[in-house]
């Protein structure tokens, strides 16, 4: 019975969405259909030409210099430069939910949930892979302005490396206090950089460093710095979440 009602409700919602989006009654839908989008009508066209604050016609990879935003990856430039405030909020979401998970699952004495006897190869092999994964994570968030990736997946990869050590080694308990400190410091620096920008340029979270030549590693001003901070913060937050989920209270 309940399923029938749910199906009917869902069909009604679906009918509403499809009829309003794709079959408007007076033929006046302003909804652009899939793939038929004209970017010139959107704010994004200015993000691509990087001419929000000044005149600029064309951005050429490896040649254009000192633009308002020096990132070759447009998604990164939107996330960390044009809409950096959203990203601050997003980091806060992860921060607060990691904190909440810690509060909910906290207990006095803790032990690892999946205790087993690891063999030598597993234990030391995992350490080897751990190093490689951390290097890859750091590469990812330090090249966020040039290649796909960036702070969020980079941080998550580092957290995944820690997860590997957890599973391979019974005695391994990451120092959670250190992660909390990293998380707090990275977040504080992000906000302080934003506040510093008010002093220097008059706008919160402004990119006040010179942006260099598009496509080189030392370009894009603050973007790589902020992405590294985000990577560290996300990495330590997800590590905190994983730690909370992997431990159980010892009953006594």
């Amino acid at each position, binding site marked *: 019975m*309940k*399923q029938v*009602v*749910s*199906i009917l*409700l*869902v069909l009604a*919602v*679906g009918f509403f*969405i499809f009829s309003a989006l*794709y079959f408007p009654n007076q033929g006046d839908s302003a909804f*652009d259909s*899939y*793939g*038929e*989008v004209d*970017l010139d009508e*959107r*704010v*994004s066209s200015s*993000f*691509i*030409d*990087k001419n929000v604050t000044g005149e600029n016609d*064309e*951005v*050429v*990879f*490896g040649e254009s210099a000192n633009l308002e935003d020096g990132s*070759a*990856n*447009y*998604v990164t*430039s*939107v*996330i960390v430069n044009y*809409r950096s405030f*959203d*990203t601050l*909020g*997003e980091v806060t*979401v*992860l921060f*607060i*939910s*990691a904190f909440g*998970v810690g509060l*909910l*699952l906290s207990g006095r004495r803790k032990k690892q949930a999946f205790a087993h006897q690891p063999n030598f190869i597993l234990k030391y092999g995992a350490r080897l892979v751990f190093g490689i994964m951390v290097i890859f994570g750091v590469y990812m968030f330090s090249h966020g302005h040039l*290649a*796909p990736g*960036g702070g*969020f997946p980079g941080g998550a990869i580092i957290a995944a490396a820690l997860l590997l050590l957890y599973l391979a080694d019974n005695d391994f308990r990451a120092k959670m206090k250190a992660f909390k400190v990293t998380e707090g410091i990275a977040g504080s620096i992000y906000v302080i950089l934003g506040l510093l920008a008010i002093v220097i340029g008059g706008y919160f979270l402004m990119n006040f460093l010179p942006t260099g030549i*598009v*496509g080189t590693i030392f370009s894009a001003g603050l973007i790589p710095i902020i992405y590294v901070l985000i990577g560290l913060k*996300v990495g330590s937050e*997800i590590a905190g*979440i994983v730690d*909370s*989920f992997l431990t159980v209270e010892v009953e006594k």
Partner: protein
Amino acid sequence: MIQYLSIALMLVGIYGLLSQRNMIKLIVSLNIFEIGLNIFIVSIGFVKDGLAPILTSNHNSSALLYVDPLPQAMVLTAIVIGVGITALALALARKLYKTHGTYELDEMEGE
């Protein structure tokens, strides 16, 4: 085409939220809904024959046709927010399981 299917996926998620009373199933349904929503948002930025929005040495000019980067940035944010909520919901579910010994919301006594 993928746009219609993503809306259908969202509806599948909503169906799960309406019909299920198991906490894990509810969280799974929520994730399905969010995946559908994310695909929908990326699809509104897709431009036919557009390039991925990254300047490289091969596609080195902003005059070429790129897909819209803004919806992709929105989806990145939405994915990360989704993970935060999923983690919180699972922590709640685990805590509730500890007191009640079940994942079924209807079988819980008290409260």
